[in-house]
């Protein structure tokens, strides 16, 4: 090697880390000519590889562009069916519910972003790079795309004698694409302008907040809807029309503008809440909260006091939102008020009052053995109600049986909260909240929906994909944690049961499990009991995903040092306290990256709903749209579109997980 360049002579397929870790961020940039010589053509072998890689990239890019801009593509099929793909045939006059749902989610997202975000910045240099390479990419695309097919006056394509399509000349094609040239020039020009404006290194490496980009780009898009009529299209009387319908909810720009404003507004509110909370907690230093030390190298301020409270509230809102949004907003349940006032309300009140009294009594500092025995008696009583209902001796309302069981569990937990008045109040408060939730949930879930849809499926398309992924993750997480605890426990029966379950589920493909739950499950249910197809599918997904989650959590549990257990035992924590306050928080933190990976996997796996005959996002593109009489066989366009949507969501999540990984400081200790 005679190359005198300071970096080691680069060779192809070298086994050296050349990731971002290898290049320090403030390395001075080389002049372009030298950069190309060093990185692309340092020697013959590398030059060949460079040419090969560039050719592959260009051909792929060209193929994609030719496909997208081909005259045979009917993208109008996708545009017309956008609403169908996302919400299926949700009735038009009720569409405002969809917007309310989106709006509420956006409010929560904005608040969380404001309260949590420690978003970094983007250096001006990177921004310039993005702009310029974006412009370059557009320009290259315009150059390499094949010239368009000529059409005659009637709009039909022209063919020559042999039957080949006649294409316009290269020069004419370039002239026709002046809009794209302009776009490329604008992008490149913006980058160049920034480059010239900020010419010294210090200013180029100064950062602008990511939030500006994250809110600015969608803002630009939303603003453009007021100028350009993207429309949403519909097929009426044999022709396509833009922006049909008179309802505001069925237009595009007003709702999206409102939603963008909500997003930005809530972000602002979140920021204000954050800074106020921090200010108040700094005014009253709270020395008790020192166990959050894990975050302090990265974070100058600790979440304590008011901030922690705000975060807890927003987290709770996130957890409750799917249940509320799906069952209340989207379904609009028809509640039977006579039943509510005659049964649910009195029963709920009774459980609330009596249960609180029982718990208050159980948490007395002198409850002792009697309290324990009372809790066990309560558990036996609750179990007896289930057995009695099963054998048909007498049957109590199911919701009451659930509440009884929960009360018994709370009673068993009571010794952990005994003594201090604040702790006792916390337990009673939690119990009241649970009672409210259970009775309210039972009322809402049992009420029939008033939304009338043309098909028997209530919602469909992307909303079903989202609903199934969210519910699956929320339901499978606690099961997965329990399974992981059981698998690592020292109790042989727990360990064997959980290991058998996990290994069997992980050994079979998801599709067989789904076919089982959608096809065979009704066989296993007692007479008169039915399970909706969607619920059966969610059950299958949950049981499947729980086994994988359990393995991820187990990895985290195994990383906890023995000393942690011993220390917890030494301070006299009970097993429950040790697990809940010492072991699980640490192990879950370690298993965050694989857990997010499992979330992504679940999101991708929801596409299997299409196989068992539910109308999810994939089925819309693969079966529903190609069967419409106007768009017979138009399948590839829809599939490409949904691939992009799936990709954007999954990629965003994986990037977030990488950031999270850095933030919790994994691999750096």
């Amino acid at each position, binding site marked *: 090697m005679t190359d005198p360049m300071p970096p080691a002579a*680069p*060779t*192809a*397929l*070298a*086994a050296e*880390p*050349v*990731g971002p870790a290898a290049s320090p961020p403030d390395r001075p940039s080389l002049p372009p000519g030298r950069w190309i010589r060093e*990185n*692309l053509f340092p020697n013959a072998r590398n030059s060949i*590889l*460079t040419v*090969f*890689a*560039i050719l592959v*990239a260009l051909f792929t890019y060209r193929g994609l562009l030719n496909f997208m801009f081909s005259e045979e593509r009917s993208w109008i099929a996708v545009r017309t069916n956008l609403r169908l793909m996302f919400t299926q045939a949700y009735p038009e006059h009720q569409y405002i519910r969809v917007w309310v749902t989106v709006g509420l989610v956006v409010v929560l997202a904005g608040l969380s972003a404001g309260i949590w975000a420690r978003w970094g910045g983007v250096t001006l240099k990177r921004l310039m790079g993005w702009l310029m390479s974006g412009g370059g990419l557009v320009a290259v695309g315009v150059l390499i795309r094949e010239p368009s097919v000529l059409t005659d006056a009637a709009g039909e394509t022209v063919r020559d004698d042999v039957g080949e399509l006649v294409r316009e000349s290269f020069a004419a094609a370039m002239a026709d694409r002046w809009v794209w040239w302009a776009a490329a020039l604008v992008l490149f020009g913006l980058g160049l302008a920034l480059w010239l404006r900020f010419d010294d290194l210090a200013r180029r490496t100064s950062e602008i907040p990511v939030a500006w980009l994250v809110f600015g780009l969608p803002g630009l898009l939303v603003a453009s809807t007021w100028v350009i009529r993207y429309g949403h299209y519909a097929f009426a009387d044999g022709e396509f029309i833009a922006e049909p319908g008179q309802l505001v909810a069925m237009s595009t720009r007003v709702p999206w503008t409102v939603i963008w404003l909500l997003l930005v507004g809530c972000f602002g509110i979140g920021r204000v809440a954050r800074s106020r909370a921090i200010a108040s907690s700094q005014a009253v230093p709270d020395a008790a909260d020192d166990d959050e030390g894990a975050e302090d190298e990265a974070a100058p301020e600790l979440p304590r006091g008011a901030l922690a409270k705000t975060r807890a509230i927003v987290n709770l809102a996130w957890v409750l939102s799917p249940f509320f949004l799906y069952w209340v907003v989207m379904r609009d349940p028809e509640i039977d008020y006579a039943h509510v006032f005659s049964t649910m309300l009195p029963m709920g009140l009774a459980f609330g009052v009596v249960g609180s009294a029982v718990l208050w009594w159980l948490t007395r500092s002198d*409850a*002792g*053995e009697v309290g*324990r*025995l009372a*809790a*066990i008696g309560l558990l036996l009583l609750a179990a007896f109600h289930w057995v009695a209902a099963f054998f048909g001796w007498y049957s109590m309302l199911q919701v009451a049986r659930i509440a009884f069981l929960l009360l018994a569990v709370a009673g068993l937990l009571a010794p*952990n909260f*005994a*003594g201090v008045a604040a702790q006792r109040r916390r337990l009673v408060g939690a119990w009241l909240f649970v009672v409210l939730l259970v009775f309210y949930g039972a009322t809402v879930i049992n009420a029939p929906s008033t939304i009338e849809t043309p098909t028997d499926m209530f919602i469909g398309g992307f909303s079903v994909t989202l609903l199934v992924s969210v519910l699956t993750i929320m339901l499978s997480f606690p099961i997965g944690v329990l399974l992981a605890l059981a698998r690592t426990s020292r*109790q*042989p*029966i*727990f360990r064997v*049961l959980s*290991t058998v379950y996990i*290994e*069997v589920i*992980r*050994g*079979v*493909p998801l*599709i*067989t499990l789904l*076919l089982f739950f959608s096809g*065979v499950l*009704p*066989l*296993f249910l007692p*007479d008169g009991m039915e399970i909706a197809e969607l619920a059966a599918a969610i059950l299958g997904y949950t049981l499947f995903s729980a086994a994988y989650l359990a393995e991820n959590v187990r990895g985290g549990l195994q990383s906890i040092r023995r000393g942690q257990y011993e220390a917890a035992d030494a301070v006299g924590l*009970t*097993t*429950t306290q040790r697990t809940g306050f010492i072991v699980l928080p640490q192990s879950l933190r370690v298993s965050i990256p694989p857990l997010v990976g499992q979330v*992504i996997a679940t999101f991708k796996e929801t*596409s299997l709903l299409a196989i068992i005959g539910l109308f999810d996002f*994939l089925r819309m593109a693969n079966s529903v749209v190609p069967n419409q009489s106007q768009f017979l066989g138009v*399948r*590839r366009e829809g*599939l*490409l579109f949904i*691939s992009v949507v799936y*990709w954007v969501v999954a990629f965003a999540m*994986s990037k977030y997980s990488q950031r999270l990984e850095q933030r919790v400081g994994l691999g750096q200790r």
Partner: protein
Amino acid sequence: MSDPRAPDRDASLSTLGTRPPFYRDATVVRWIAQVGTLILVLAALWFLATEAGDSLRARGANIDFDFISDHIGIKVGWGIDTNPDSGGRALWVGMVNTIRMAAAGIALASVVGVLVGLARLSSNWPLRRLAGVYVEALRNIPLLVQILVYAAVLASLPNVSFDMGPIPGWVHLSNKGLSIPRVFVADGFYQWAVVMLIGGVIARVVFKRLAARREQTGMQTNAGAWATGIVAVFAIVGWWVHPIFGWLGGVFGGLSDAVGSIPQGVVQLVAALAAAGVAVWWIRRFLAQHRTPAGLVRLTDDDWFRMIFAVAGAAIVVLFVAVLWPGLSSWIVNSSSDGLGVLADKFGNGRTGAPIDAMRPDIVQPGNFPNYGPAGLNLPIGFAAVYFGVVFYTAAFIAEIVRGGILAVPKGQSEAAQAVGLRRSTALRRVILPQALRVILPPVGNQYLNLTKNTSLAIAVGYSDLVQIGQTVYNQTGKTLQVMAVWMLFYLACSLTISAAVNFFNIRLRIVER
């Protein structure tokens, strides 16, 4: 959960030193909780089973495996037998298709994955970025969507044209799939294989001797070249002289008759005893491996489960042999004679032709539309879609694992290799990859497992794998539960096989380490 070890905050001094009441005794409470859970689980299972039995009885369906040997008229799109005469045979065709797809997929996915993983670490900027785009693009799109995209693209290819007969080229691609020349085992293959076997044995002996001489004298003996040469000579000569082994047919025929004259019960008994014997032998060996001079090593759960699975596998074999023997041989070889009879036929005296032959693809018109004929090896678009789908998807994950594994090798290793003057490629092959392999292998084995399970998505594009055929079978016979049991056993067997193979290599690598 009730907590047995809660410190008794109110304990008065008088209770100190006495045994706690039984309901606070940790051991007692733990066992009560465990047994209670076990009873709950069993009760739930029992409840579900009785309900299922009731509803099946109400429908007039019985839980039996008759469909395995009964004739059911189903057609399979692609496989070793397109007109299976029994349900068991149909499922077997599906299993073979799944195994084919998985094996071919694992082979290609490994190659693509390793190449992309290396490219991600290349110092060549465009190549590195290209590989990065590949990984990020493919692993964030659901596999099913990718499979359907491939199927849609392949389905939009032009139709098979109407010129019937052999295709002029070697490869033909259309919306019916891909047709390539069929290379097949012809007349004298089995006799030729015997010649090769003899050549192989001789080559091995020669190789060992030459290698030993090199060890002793340090002289270059070219052991590998000699061994290869001997096998090649045997292969070439055997191509023409293989009919000299025609007499083997008579031997197998005689054996077949001899076995046929033994009562079936005896054969079943011997087979069952053999299966049980293998299980016992395996467990003994397994325990012997875990024995140290200080006594038996504490077995982990996985060890216990391996032994349990060995016993369960033997039990299943015994069950199959005992209950389903008459059907067994007919599903797999599709002939009424047993394996020895088939071998007798394969070694027949009249087999004097070439051992291996090939045919060009052709086009025929059996019905209304022209299609590929039996002369070529036809891969329907369903096969291609699933194949490309699982290969490229899994390769993206394997690439990340390979990259991580290589990065996990300490930097000093590559520097040391450079210092002793190894070339980069040699260093990669001899120093880096062998060490990285230890990190790479377990997660890659997991990916192989995923790939095998993911082939079941073939149901969406109509490739006849086990799940697709199974669905057809239970739609016709109503034996849903039984078919699902077969699925489960098959996929569990696949998982165990793959994890056993990975473990085997892992152990070998670990020995190299010491």
